[in-house]
């Protein structure tokens, strides 16, 4: 902006300070907004980006946190590809993710539709209470569910016994443990997603429903042809967030099956990728290998988020 100044009759020694001041002010005005938003980015740099890059770095080492750090190149990754425990953990993660996300989102959709009903009494009470599981501590939820699913003394098996069925050893079996953990996740997140859907539904004009009702559309038809289409963007959002969350499930498998330490069962039947990462890094101090697991997980999450994003934009742009 200083170039805009044409030749002026003011002597140079007077003109310069004024010009400097103006430059300074310009710089300040230019910097101020960055300074205001800097706290987030500085914190992100230190607690987000740096650990991320550092993880990439140590995944190239045989890294003992209190001993030696030996550079091994890509050995950790080639070992990872041959490691049945990693592939097992990946299978468990996807299986638990599908088992928890699909029923959870469907249930949340239905609940949101019901909670949005014009003639619902005590609406505030019901709407608040769906959030109760979400504010309960994960650890407490997990311990209670683990007891309910217990082989000999759990409530579910007691009930199965009453009906004349054999007891199911949920924690010991592959599917049993996955269903058990998926139930815990769905229990915790269904209410949260319900409220997201409900918020979006409330923005839909009531007249649409009234008009549909006048035309003779029943509740199911209204749900299918009014609620769902208006929820498209928010459905896309919940699918993406529950994918990212679902691929990082950790606390439930950590606490649900104390036998065998960090493996979630004797056959690692419900050990997720994050739990495997934790076992390698903090259970056995193989930080380099643990970091390699972390990098692999990072790649998978990014790939899936991308895929989801493509899918979601298609869902969003489709006309009802």
């Amino acid at each position, binding site marked *: 902006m200083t170039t805009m100044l044409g030749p002026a009759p003011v002597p140079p020694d007077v003109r310069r300070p004024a010009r400097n001041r103006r430059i300074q002010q310009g710089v300040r005005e230019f910097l101020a907004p960055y300074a205001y938003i800097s706290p987030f980015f500085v914190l992100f740099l230190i607690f987000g980006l740096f650990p991320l890059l550092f993880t990439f770095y140590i995944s190239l080492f045989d890294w003992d946190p209190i001993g030696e750090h030996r550079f091994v190149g890509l050995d950790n990754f080639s070992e990872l590809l041959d*490691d049945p425990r990693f592939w097992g953990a990946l299978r468990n993660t996807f299986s638990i993710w599908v088992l928890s996300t699909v029923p959870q989102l469907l249930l949340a959709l239905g609940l949101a539709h019901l909670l949005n009903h014009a003639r619902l009494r005590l609406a505030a009470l019901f709407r608040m209470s769906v959030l109760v599981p979400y504010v309960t501590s994960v650890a407490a939820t997990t311990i209670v569910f683990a007891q309910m699913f217990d082989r000999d*003394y759990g409530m579910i098996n007691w009930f199965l016994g009453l009906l004349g069925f054999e007891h199911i050893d949920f924690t010991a079996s592959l599917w049993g443990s996955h269903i058990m953990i998926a139930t815990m996740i769905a229990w915790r997140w269904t209410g949260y997603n319900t409220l997201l859907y409900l918020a979006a539904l409330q923005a839909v004009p009531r007249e649409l429903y009234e008009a549909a009702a006048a035309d003779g559309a029943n509740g199911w038809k209204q749900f299918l042809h009014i609620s769902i289409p208006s929820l498209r963007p928010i459905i896309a959002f919940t699918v993406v967030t529950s994918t990212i969350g679902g691929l990082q499930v950790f606390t439930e498998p950590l606490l649900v099956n104390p036998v065998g330490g960090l493996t979630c069962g004797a056959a690692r039947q419900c050990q997720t990728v994050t739990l495997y990462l934790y076992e390698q890094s903090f259970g056995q101090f193989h930080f380099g290998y643990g970091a390699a697991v972390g990098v692999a997980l990072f790649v998978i999450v990014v790939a899936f988020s991308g895929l989801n994003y493509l899918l979601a934009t298609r869902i969003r742009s489709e006309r009802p």
Partner: protein
Amino acid sequence: MKRVRTTATAVIAAAALLLAGCGGSDGESDSKTFEFWSFANINQKADVDVYTKAHPDVRVKLTEVGSTTETAQALTAALAGGKVPDLVLIQADDLPKFMQSPDNFVDLTTLGANDIKGNYLDWVMAQSTTKDGKIIGVPTDVGGLAVAYRTDLFKAAGLPTDRDEVAKLWPTWDEFINVGKQYVQKTGKPFVDNTPTSVFFQAVNQGSQRYYSADRKLDYDNEQVKAAFDVTLKAFDAGISAKQGSFSSGWTAAMKKGDYAVVCSPSWMLSQMKTNAPETNGKWDIATIPGGSGNWGGSFLAIPKRAKNAKAAWNYISEMQSPKGQLDHFLMQGSLPTTPSVYTDPQLVGKTDPFFSNAPIGKIYTQSVLGIKPFYFGPQDGPIGTEFLNTLTSVEQGKVNPANAWDTALTNVKNAVRE
């Protein structure tokens, strides 16, 4: 001017936020204060209280970090680049990992450990001594082995209830299995809580070699481990197991309900049993373990190299871990001394526990740790033990065929040690 100030304020605020995380005062580092990290639930506070009462000028800042594993993890993080305590308690299973990098700790021989090392069981001392003679830790207790059994259930099954007679029933694991079969036949109920923990983890700790050879090389595929593994499969095959994994919720519930009659219980497990099943008070008794002497567990006190006050920490160790100190701690808390000179002390021999029908726990457990042959504990002991245990648990859960179990276990161990 105003804008300059607001810009500066924003920057300072950001900086302050960051510094708040890194700050932390150094605290007082006078020679009379030291920091001590311990696990929770083993009541080191009682020891600290005794010590500070005798030395009112000393201040001990005790932190109960969490479980034994969590304490080891916190110590690892601290050693890797944080504020270290002056004194730290390390569980025997975690110790080998730290022994790999002894430079992180004060060599206690420089503080006088050579003068007191003769007080402790030689095979325990060997675990915290490096190849070139540095001493990293002083043992605080050992985990002697014994069997806890329900006298009421034994009586109902027509078995003897007197602890000496019960001990005579099972000098070996094979005879233990036979007693179990008799019990199951008579009552129709399972005998022992599970086989992986109650048989394998006991038997594998009774040999002269575990997962490493005497010259400190990995050697888990050996006859002694195989024998312990096979006797566990035999116990499973005999149908005497309740298949309740140790420390699980089912294990606790079954203990309360008397759904098994026997738990092989290292000395440190006794207090857990009391907490888990208080309603079974007086129904238990303790008999010697089949298969001879053995040890599982125990802990060590160590001083990190960067400790601010190593001298004060050492004074604490040498006083509280003297034979007299360990005896007092046993009488107060029940963890087993590592100093054999007090094993014949009338107070220790005479110590009984009403929860276990007044069994002389001091006498029974100290006998189980005498005559142990030292074997080397290596850095991979933890993961190897877990894989063997997990495979045997899979057998109990019907997921692994007993005939393939040994090969499966070896494959799993191989993966775990990343050979």
